[in-house]
């Protein structure tokens, strides 16, 4: 069997599926871009430059990458499992990893699209100017976010039914983003919420890496 052929077909199919679903495209691309433009650029007085502008780009970039991986895996796998599609895949002579790699590939393609819009907005209007190596590091960190959130999504997709997965993924996506300080810095939270946010240790790791 031509594994490479199957893999490229599978990746192509996943990307097509994702780009043809407005209910997936709009929240995952438009939401982070809109949020960043409103909170990171307009309400921040054109970004104002400096550390704050970089901080906001770093956190909204993570927000932008979380969406495709959590929804692609969480909702995607739950739906396809519900519909019996996964059973047919298991019967087909295709190793399971191809399915997972293709979903990861689609999440990465999506993230790259959103991030390139986000970086453009940041560069032109958000007052962010960074050396090329820092841009590259930022991109690597942002794309790296895909891995843990894909795994989180995958465990949701395999433990929940279709509609339940949509609800839980949304709650986790928005909840983790808020608590992770992705929309606004943690110090702007009331004390009790800040304490709650600090319990999210793994999350803080990403966010600190983004700010340094």
């Amino acid at each position, binding site marked *: *069997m*031509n594994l490479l*052929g*199957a893999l490229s*077909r*599978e990746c192509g*199919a996943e990307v*097509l*599926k994702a780009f*043809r*679903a407005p209910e997936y495209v709009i929240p995952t691309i438009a939401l982070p871009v809109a949020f960043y433009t409103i909170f990171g650029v307009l309400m921040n007085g054109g970004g104002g430059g400096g550390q704050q502008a970089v901080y906001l780009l770093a956190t909204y970039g993570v927000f932008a990458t979380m969406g495709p991986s959590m929804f692609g895996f969480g909702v995607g796998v739950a739906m*396809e499992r519900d*519909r*019996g*599609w996964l*059973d*047919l895949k*298991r*019967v*087909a*002579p*295709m*190793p399971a990893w191809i399915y997972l790699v293709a979903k990861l590939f689609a999440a990465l393609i999506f993230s790259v699209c959103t991030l390139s819009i986000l970086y453009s907005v940041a560069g032109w209007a958000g007052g962010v100017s960074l050396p090329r190596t820092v841009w590259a590091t930022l991109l690597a960190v942002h794309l790296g976010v895909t891995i843990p959130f894909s795994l989180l999504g995958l465990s949701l997709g395999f433990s929940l039914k279709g509609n339940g997965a949509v609800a839980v993924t949304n709650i986790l996506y928005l909840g983790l983003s808020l608590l992770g300080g992705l929309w606004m810095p943690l110090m702007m939270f009331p004390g009790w919420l800040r304490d709650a946010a600090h319990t999210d240790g793994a999350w803080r790791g990403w966010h600190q890496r983004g700010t340094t």
Partner: protein
Amino acid sequence: MVFICQLTHTRLITKSTLKFKVKCSKRNEFEVTEDEATPIRLTGVSKKYGKVHALADVDLTIETGGISAILGPNGAGKTTLINILLGLVAPGKGSAQVFDGTPGRLLARRRIGAMLQDTELPELLTVAEHIALFSSYYPDPRPVVETLALAGLRDLANRKYKNLSGGQKRRVQFAAAIAGRPTLVFLDEPTTGLDLEARQGLWQVVQELSDDGATIILTTHYLEEADNLADRIIVIDQGSIVADGPTAEIRARVGGKKIRCRTSLSEADIAACSEVRSVQRAGRYMDILTSDEVATLRTLLERDAQLTDISVTGTGLEDAFTALTKRNAALDSHAQTGAAA
């Protein structure tokens, strides 16, 4: 192999020519030498879901070639049987072998195509994209165009799956099952939701695949479907195989007529007639399955002057199952009355 799809469309050349041509092609010779393993061998397979026996001690061997129909009422265990053979479900007890090895292993899957029940493909891909994707999994797939033509989907190639009718979706699933040129094809209730024309079209393609040497296993609850297609019928009820044999033989066992009437005769009296297969009281009526309705009616009319409300109908599948599943019980009671006399 392009000629196969041409054949399907022109339907001019006879099957024997088709067979001859396929046998001449190099690819087929290769498959024949590769195909010495027994496609299916189940020994003492049982499967329980909770306290329900989905399968109880099933022995079944299916050799290469031919169309076998697994027939049974809903919940009889047909789908469990298929799922065990596909490696989706592990047998609780006993051994299941597909091509002389564990079901579901990659080497077996490469030679298998399957159409499952309750399966929906992703909605946003087109028919052609689905088939191209499925073909890419197999080592030696049919060209996509050919698969589409075989499943009667040429005009729908660029339509998204979500915009298809139920029957069209079923045909896409069928196309996916045969895309990889499998030598063992599982079709679980393949024609549910298809109209008569589409059903007959599918039967024809299944027949052609079989003529090409593929082993076909289909489940159905349409007796007509089994009758039209299968060389062998396996009747399964409450997890056990209750009948297994060539189609003609099974048909002879379940064929015949059903007489419904009101009579003062007892069940045992009627069952004593040699041509009567089973007798069952249904409220005020008596349901009699018989292989010779004329002889039975004559006996009934002779013996019972009060015989009324007579109707004679062909046996439906339900009656066939009743006959097959109650046959053993009827024989037992026969034996008992015989002993008492």
